[in-house]
């Protein structure tokens, strides 16, 4: 009985150590996917507002475009941090 328990534990321990790499890969993929949701929506909002501004006032399109790139850059940073975590977690 005791030996059976010991075997079970060793098998369980084995399973846990063997899964680490796989769990890391799943975590990396899920992490990047989740990190991309917010910035995706955010960049959509930024660009939509910028297009709205450009079509309403074409003479100030230059300023709107510059500000749009700034907004995209700040929003995109979050997705890129997710990408960095993905690279760091890769086996």
């Amino acid at each position: 009985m005791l030996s059976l328990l010991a075997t079970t534990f060793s098998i369980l321990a084995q399973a846990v150590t063997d899964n680490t790499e796989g769990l890391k890969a799943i975590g990396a993929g899920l992490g990047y996917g989740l990190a991309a949701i917010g910035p995706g929506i955010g960049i959509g909002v930024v660009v939509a507002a910028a297009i709205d501004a450009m079509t309403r006032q074409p003479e100030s399109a230059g300023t709107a475009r510059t500000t749009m790139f700034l907004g995209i850059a700040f929003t995109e940073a979050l997705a890129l941090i997710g990408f960095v975590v993905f690279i760091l977690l890769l086996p």
Partner: protein
Amino acid sequence: MKVLALDFPPVSHLFEWPDFAFEGTHLAMNKTVLIYLFALVLTMWLFMSAGAKKSLVPRGVSHVAEGGINFVEDSIVMQTMGAEGKKYVPFLTTMFFFIFFSNIFEVIPFIQFPANARMAVPIAMALLVWVIYNFLGVKNQGFFGYLKNSLFPPGVPKALYLIVTPIEFFSVFIIRPLSLAIRLWANMVAGHLLLVTFAVLSATLWDSTYVGAVAPAAMLVIMTGFEILVSFLQAFIFTILTAVYMGGAIHPEH
């Protein structure tokens, strides 16, 4: 690494190059160093040869250099710092062209590696920008004035400073240089991985079924075009964020 039965090279093989000169010393050279040196020489050559030929109507190299300077002045400096930022145009133009040249090697045949996909130079440039905007802030507003303007933004209720001040401290002094470097580096890494993925896919499918390679090869061409845009855009964004940080240090918000 096997991905979908494709023989995908391990990530370290795509970004780490063996040294070929001065091995084992601090001056060791590899492909990345060579690309940076080439980008440096290209930037210097562009402006020095354009400056040597003084003609009323710019032609050839002068035309490119003047267009670049005008672009940086009109759509980066004037939009963010105003007329008094004009004395920083040389610095920003050099930075823009250096980053652009080291990025564009991503799509140049037989070289095909964006040098900024290694972290060293992006973080060094971001730290340089950090030093410059802090120096400008202290110079223009005084040490305590600069700290007060950047840590205690006006128009916030007094009690909220308990939360706002630590956040502002992190975002101004730590997150800014880090995000500047990570943005450039991660965009180049992602672009390189994207191109490698489609190239490996095309090569493998060409070996097994000739017809199957058509779609990934077409995608590779499209993505190459997209990466030209990205390498321009990242140079633009790095430069414009530098200008914004410098402008914020010269002129605090009231």
